[in-house]
């Protein structure tokens, strides 16, 4: 085995960090979609990721559907779960305060997680990589093909959402709800429907994150909470509500973890990312790309 | 300049500039307010009136310039420090403590004049209890003054808008201010309520408290102000007594541009 040069090591850390960061970014984008329309932080976001992975495994490995078909079915099923979440756990709340909504989404995440445990048990599941497991070597840096899928999906999701919110009527209507729900209602936008749509959309993105992650890290019922916390951190670091912020935040957290594990004490790698997050918040109280004046007037 | 050099000035603003990013909300504002007078600040929407209030009360820090109050430089100070020096205010959007009763709202206004030691309060020392009785009486007297005594134990959020505005004024008075800044006290009120408010503002002046007033209702302005300052697009375009302002062509121009007639 050839030894590895310091430069290759650095690039390897970066590649790994970006991949893991891309997953966090997708979770953070999911947070933002719902937050922008409803101001709710949906802490069940991580469960969408978990469900996406497990349903994909079920459809592809257990049922035996071809990869693409399994992918589509899994996205649809998780999307449905997202819509049910809105209708069963969020919409019925009559006095929605921020605290109540946080508890409601935590409750929902517990129910989803518990149900997944009853269905799939506690063991981890594997999914074949989308295009094989033969690693690509690039100047001493090893890239798993699945890494490219993860980063590729992040790019697709980001571009897709940008087009959706800027170019389509539905997307613009959702953006309008985010800016001013009362005004949106006045011009005839069905806000309830938009809320439902936001849950559907962010569930779908969570599912995609889960399906691309599973071939790398396996999936089990208990993975959601950690992903939700990382994704929430990414969304906050980037600035709540900002999609570019979410991508930046996610990739940054992934990079800090990877570089921290590589160069410093690996036991503290999660702490490094959070310390950076805290320092950023102390200097910029609404994240890198957030708007302080907006957050200033949202209270508990 | 319409300033009066022979009277002592409670509030002195010099070369005040406030910029938000690229947008300049206030440009080179000079303002002197004499003790015991009612000074109105008027101007079309977006003229910078509320920004000026926020600068005086410490919600914002000016980009340039100084604000002096009763001999202290207050620009850049925190709101609670400024409140302690004797400036009190109301809000355009009515910021009452909706989770409290009417009298509790006023009692919060006594905060600066009482002991609020965490441990004394938690231990429920007799000193704190007798202090409570005293400030309750004080608050009741103030409610009597503003005419809300009979609503003392209602929840603040149950009052109609007119009374909410009055309560906010009452609460502002509870701090024993030298200067109160009233942000559109008559906005959204009907005629009777407006008259009540105007009477109350005059009564405040009679107590020797200086009043700074932002208002759109010209009838109120013309009736009760001693001096009027007119802002337009962040600049002071005129200053003087109601009579002087009424005939000022610049003012008429500014308002006609905004298609509102001056009474």
């Amino acid at each position, binding site marked *: 085995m050839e030894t590895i040069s310091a430069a290759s090591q650095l690039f390897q850390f970066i590649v790994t960090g970006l991949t893991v960061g891309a997953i966090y970014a997708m979770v953070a984008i999911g947070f933002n979609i719902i937050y922008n329309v409803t101001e709710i932080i949906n802490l069940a976001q991580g469960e969408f990721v978990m469900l996406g992975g497990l349903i994909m495994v079920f459809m592809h490995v257990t049922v035996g559907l071809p990869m693409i078909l399994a992918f589509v079915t899994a996205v649809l099923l998780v999307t449905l779960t997202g819509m049910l979440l809105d209708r069963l756990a969020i919409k019925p709340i009559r006095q929605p305060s921020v605290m109540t909504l946080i508890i409601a989404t935590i409750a929902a995440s517990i129910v989803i997680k518990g149900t997944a*445990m009853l269905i799939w048990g506690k063991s981890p599941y594997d999914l074949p990589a989308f295009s094989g497991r033969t690693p690509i070597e690039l100047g001493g840096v090893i890239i798993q093909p699945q890494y490219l899928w993860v980063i590729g999906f992040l790019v697709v999701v980001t571009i897709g959402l940008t087009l959706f919110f800027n170019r389509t009527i539905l997307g613009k209507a959702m953006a309008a709800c985010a800016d001013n729900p009362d005004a949106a209602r006045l011009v005839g936008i069905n806000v309830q429907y938009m809320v439902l749509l936001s849950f559907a959309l962010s569930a779908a993105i969570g599912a995609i994150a889960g399906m691309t992650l599973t071939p790398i890290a396996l999936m089990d019922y208990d993975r959601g909470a950690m992903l939700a916390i990382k994704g929430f951190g990414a969304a906050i670091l980037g600035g709540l509500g900002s999609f570019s912020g979410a991508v930046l935040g996610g990739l940054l957290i992934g990079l800090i973890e990877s570089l921290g594990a590589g160069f410093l004490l*690996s*036991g503290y790698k999660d702490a490094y990312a959070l310390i950076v997050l805290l320092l950023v918040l102390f200097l910029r109280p609404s994240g890198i790309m957030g708007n302080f004046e907006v957050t200033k007037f949202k209270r508990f | 300049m319409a300033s009066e050099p022979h009277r002592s000035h409670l509030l002195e603003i010099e070369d005040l500039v406030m910029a938000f990013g690229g947008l300049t909300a206030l440009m080179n504002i000079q303002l002197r307010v004499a003790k015991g007078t009612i000074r109105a600040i008027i101007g079309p929407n977006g003229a910078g009136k509320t920004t000026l209030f926020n600068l005086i009360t410490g919600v914002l820090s000016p980009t340039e310039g100084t604000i002096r109050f009763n001999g202290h430089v207050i620009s850049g100070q925190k709101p609670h420090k400024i409140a302690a020096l004797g400036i009190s205010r109301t809000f355009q959007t009515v910021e009452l403590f909706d989770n409290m009763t009417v009298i509790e709202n006023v009692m919060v206004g006594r905060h600066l004049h009482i002991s609020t030691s965490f441990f004394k309060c938690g231990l429920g020392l007799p000193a704190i209890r007798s202090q409570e009785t005293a400030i309750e009486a004080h608050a009741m007297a103030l409610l009597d003054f503003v005419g809300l005594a009979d609503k003392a134990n209602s929840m603040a959020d149950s009052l109609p808008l007119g009374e909410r505005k009055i309560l906010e004024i009452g609460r502002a008075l509870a701090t024993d201010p030298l200067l109160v800044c009233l942000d559109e006290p008559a906005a959204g009120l009907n005629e009777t309520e407006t008259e009540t408010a105007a009477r109350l503002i005059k009564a405040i002046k009679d107590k020797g408290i200086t009043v700074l007033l932002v208002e759109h209702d010209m009838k109120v302005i013309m009736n009760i102000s001693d001096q009027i300052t007119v802002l337009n697009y962040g600049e002071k375009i005129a200053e003087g007594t109601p009579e002087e302002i009424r005939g000022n062509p610049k003012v008429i121009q500014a308002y006609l541009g905004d298609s509102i007639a001056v009474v």
Partner: protein
Amino acid sequence: MVKKSAMALLAGLVIFGFSIQPALATYKVGAIFSVTGGASFLGDPEKKTAQMVVDQINRDGGINGEKIELIVYDDETDPTKCNLHAKKLISQDKVVAVIGPSVSGLSVAIIPVFEKFKTPLVSCAASYKIVYNEKTGKPNKWVFKTPQSDSLAVEAIYTKMQSMGIHKIAILTVTDGYGASGRHELLRLAQAYKMDIVADEKYDPKDADMTAQLTKIKGLAPQAIVNWSVGPTQVTVLRNWRDLGMTPITFFQSHGFGSRKNIELAAGAAEGVFCPLGACNIADLLPEDHPQKQVTMAYQKSYTETYNEPLSSFGGHAWDAIQLVVDALKAVGGDRAKIRDYLENKKGFIGQHGVFNFSPEDHNGLTKEAFQMVVVKDGDWALAK
């Protein structure tokens, strides 16, 4: 008024929230396992095993004609719950002995309870701290354990390494109790076996990727890597090792790798990986004359038939624990002190994880021969030569 009623309501809930009373039985044995929570990979097979063994004994007529009732509580890998359950088993359910908990930390956590209430505990967790009181230098009087200490697994690995000429190694551990205990032993015994640990890396139990840690290790070029974890990470780390082209560095897993399911999940990446396993993992590989051949084959057969899932080595610890208690009940009946004394002097007990020889100085009763070094070959275990 409102608050008064709330208080009354609460009082009512507290008083009348009765738990279901268990039916009467002659011998009550308690069990505390981490059936859910972070250590469910231990507690789940342990609970299933203990239940299965008790059901079998009852079906076969019980102990001297008397049935056993197993009362199982799930501590959810939470020390507070574990502590509460222990006290409830002792003082309310009045069990004669308790097996479990699954986790070392929780076992240590409840030692004082068992010492105080003079009830035997047969722990299913590995740490030597469970049966070694640092103040007295002797075992805790009422506490036994069935799993091999982690030190035995480490010694088995280091012995194998020495025979392979390996002395420069990297260790990778997961940041939970399992990994920490393994790491502690790996570091402690390194000197005695002349091992030079060039990297001491960690990762979280929920981490998605360990490429960063492995890349760092790759730069230090050790001869072997020891990984100490359970759950999905021990599979992910193998895949990363393979993908990074690090297969020339020999990979050792802990005994936590002891399920064929893991070889399957590694999707080919486990090939050539060494790991120390107890007899019950490799029952079918044991020679016919091996003392444990019979019990391990029987356990494997009935477990896979009952639960239709592959055997996990951890279930075997519960098998050993419950069978030891049953053995004591058969011999001395339901007296707590007598059970304790019996267990302390038990010799030659043939279990899933070795032949136990207890003594007042040793409440574990196993030696490093309890582990067999195994290598993954053609997608299955093979005894390493």
